[in-house]
């Protein structure tokens, strides 16, 4: 009996990335652009989707809802008569805290891809794990709400770097908070220099049209950031 060293030098997430590429090929062949929407719990992902998707015509959008358990978010989207599929991660070790490529792959048969231009995947609310796992998306959007504080880019650099667009939500609350927007943007530019950003309020609708325009442009492949 003896020991042998085997050199590997391989990304630990290679297996996930391989499945993500397979998902991407399936999305490409169906001509569907895919957005991976990520944020902390309560940052307003579902509320923003409700506001944006209500008036997204002519784009045909669908939603894949990722949650540890339950279908509360999917029910909200279904009220808009938008195709929605719920994906629960709650099996095994208390439920996965993110979606990975394989989970998304398992949901593909339930999605009416042929009838969609755009699929928005609402990830599980979490500021760390979703950033590690590609799912075959064209672009990643992260939402940071002003109630979370201006230090978040410094605390969660992985997430703030793993995105092509940062949405700063709940700006209607700015007058009531100590949130220093300039400081937040300074931190954001330190962590992810020049990343496109949008300020909006999903609740009042202020700034939401710019997000719709961004989604339309992505769906039309006019600007493909990723």
């Amino acid at each position: 009996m003896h020991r042998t060293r085997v050199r590997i030098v391989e990304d630990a997430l290679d297996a996930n990335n391989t499945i993500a590429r397979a998902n991407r090929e399936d999305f490409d062949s169906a001509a569907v652009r895919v957005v991976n929407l990520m944020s902390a719990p309560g940052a307003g992902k579902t509320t923003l989707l409700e506001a944006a998707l209500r008036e997204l015509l002519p784009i045909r959008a669908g939603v894949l809802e990722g949650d540890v358990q339950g279908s509360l978010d999917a029910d909200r989207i279904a009220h808009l008569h938008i195709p929605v599929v719920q994906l629960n991660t709650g099996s095994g070790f208390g439920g996965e805290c993110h979606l990975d490529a394989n989970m998304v792959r398992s949901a593909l048969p339930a999605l009416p891809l042929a009838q969609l231009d755009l699929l928005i995947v609402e990830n599980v609310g979490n500021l760390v794990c979703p950033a590690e796992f590609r799912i075959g998306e064209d672009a990643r959007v992260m939402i940071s709400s002003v109630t979370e504080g201006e230090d978040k880019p410094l605390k969660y650099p992985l997430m703030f770097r793993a995105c092509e667009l940062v949405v700063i939500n709940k700006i209607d609350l700015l007058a009531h908070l100590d949130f220093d927007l300039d400081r937040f943007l300074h931190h954001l530019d330190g962590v992810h220099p020049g990343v496109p950003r949008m300020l909006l309020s999903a609740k009042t609708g202020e700034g939401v049209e710019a997000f719709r325009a961004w989604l339309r442009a992505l769906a039309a492949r006019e600007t493909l950031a990723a």
Partner: protein
Amino acid sequence: MHELSIASAILHTATRHAQGRQVSVVSVRVGPLRQVSADSLRFYFEIVARESGCANARLEVTEVALRLRCRDCGEQWESEQPEFRCPRCLPGSVEILTGEELEVDYIEVQEESECIAQG
């Protein structure tokens, strides 16, 4: 919980390369930009490796420093913070030299063959 999924991914990679041999060491390199806690990773690895070919294998975590370089002035520096601003010519266009790693570097496996041990 981040580390649980990553520990599973590391186990998957190590098991695939072990090709049925018992694994005694799994060595990984992790950069600070991956926000992985080495202690937590070792803890979860021990759990997910039970009843696998990596049971009782030691997970060695080498932490790689964040090294940055300014594309504009060529300055290179090591950073404790995830701040991508050149200290010399702010803001500069900064590239990452090291610090984004999350890779399985090597494994050590037990061989029962009679060939002469290597390395």
